[in-house]
């Protein structure tokens, strides 16, 4: 059995369930067809080792392929695993609904803040986050608003303003 991760962070003690390091940035949750099938097997099975998962898949896959898929799902935070007799026993860490919610959150986070992609989504943003604005200019605008408000109210500008 070569079913052990080289990563010390994800190497649990014997009999102790492990999940990928909490607090670290989770990888994106894009799931392939094979990953979805493996998850479905584990949900129906409860928990299983690599061999048991491989036996329940609709198509025959090499042991190492299933092992890699399980490891990938574990690293995505979708499975937890426990070491028993030199082999990992995997179980589903999240429900189907939780996975969907996480995928949705990932997507939103990526679209709102990822600078690498240009996904062409129709949004009507209150303010545009497209450019870096000069903070001096923003300061000037703020003081302009304060003095305009003060003029309107017929009094001196407030020292701190703000909404």
């Amino acid at each position: 059995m070569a079913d052990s991760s080289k990563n010390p962070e994800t190497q649990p003690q014997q009999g102790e369930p492990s999940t990928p390091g909490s607090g670290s940035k989770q990888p994106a949750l894009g799931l392939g067809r094979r990953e979805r099938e493996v998850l479905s097997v584990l949900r129906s099975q409860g928990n299983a080792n690599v061999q048991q998962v491989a036996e329940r898949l609709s198509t025959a896959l090499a042991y190492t392929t299933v092992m890699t898929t399980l490891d990938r799902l574990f690293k995505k935070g979708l499975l937890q695993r426990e070491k028993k007799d030199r082999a990992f026993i995997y179980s589903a860490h999240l429900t189907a609904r939780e996975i969907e919610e996480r995928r949705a959150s990932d997507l939103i986070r990526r679209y709102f803040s990822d600078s690498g992609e240009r996904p062409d989504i129709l949004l009507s943003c209150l303010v545009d986050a497209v450019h870096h604005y000069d903070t001096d200019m923003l300061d000037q605008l703020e003081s302009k608003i304060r003095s305009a408000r003060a003029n309107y109210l017929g009094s001196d500008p407030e020292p701190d303003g703000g909404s």
Partner: protein
Amino acid sequence: MALSYTLRLACLVVVSIGILQTTLELILWAGSPVLQRLLASLPVRQHERLLYLLQVAPFLIAVLLTGFFCVPQYLHTETNLAPETVGWLCLLLAAIVCAWFGFAALRSLRIAARTIHFSQACRRSGQSLTHAHNQTHIYTLQEPANRVALVGLYNPFVCISQNLMEDGSLSALALDVVLDHERSHALHRDNWKLFSLHVIPRLSLRLPAGSTWMRLWQNAAEWAADDDAVRGDSTRAFLLAETLVALTRRATTPDPAMICTGLVCGESEFAVRIDRLIQRFPTSSPQRRLSTILALSAMVCGAALVIASLSPWLRNVSERLLHLG
């Protein structure tokens, strides 16, 4: 190359729409300084609507002229049902127009698919805040960019970062103004308008003043939503101005990740928007509005006269087009 009757008709339709649209867009481009001055004197909502119309009009007019003039003329005059040679320039133009329209169609499909996907993700991930009196749904999202945005095409909804709701950056009144702004976009179907501007193939020429018709429309749409949110109340105007500055400080990212109707493309435009809010809405006078409407009517009449004067040449236009080159 010899084409059958049907293919010749298809070729004629494509080339006719392409040439007419390009011509009309070039005319609008040349007349843009005058048009911009005229439109600027109109109330901002009318300004926005006319800017939108100016962008869709070339394509619609091209389709209408082709459908009601060029095609019937061809069907009426063309008696040769056998294959006939078509000019190489006509074929080249047809290929270019097909590629142009095909690209626009693919881009709009991609935008629609991604928008629907993103909307579904927001609905799944967000927490709904809607109450019975509001037609526009509101979702709070756990996202780091501190955004307020209207999302989606069908039944668009407002997304607000959870952070903005929790850290007290938005007072109740500020939130009300902000939501009114987004509801105005929903009410006037600004996302649909933006989508249609991507669906319709356009040249997107940069105007002599340095902007584009699209950008001008985006500015006007944003100003109009500001006006709707402010409702003529100076307190709300100051509050919106302050909120815009505060959110801009927090919402800055290094590179655009989406197409936004948010107008603030640069610092100068943002400053203009704020100035507009704090200067208590300079409104156009009825006299200027009347003169603008008269000037625009005169332009439309002039265009009709030009088309009428070209009618002798237009009699054989379909044959001329097919044998270009």
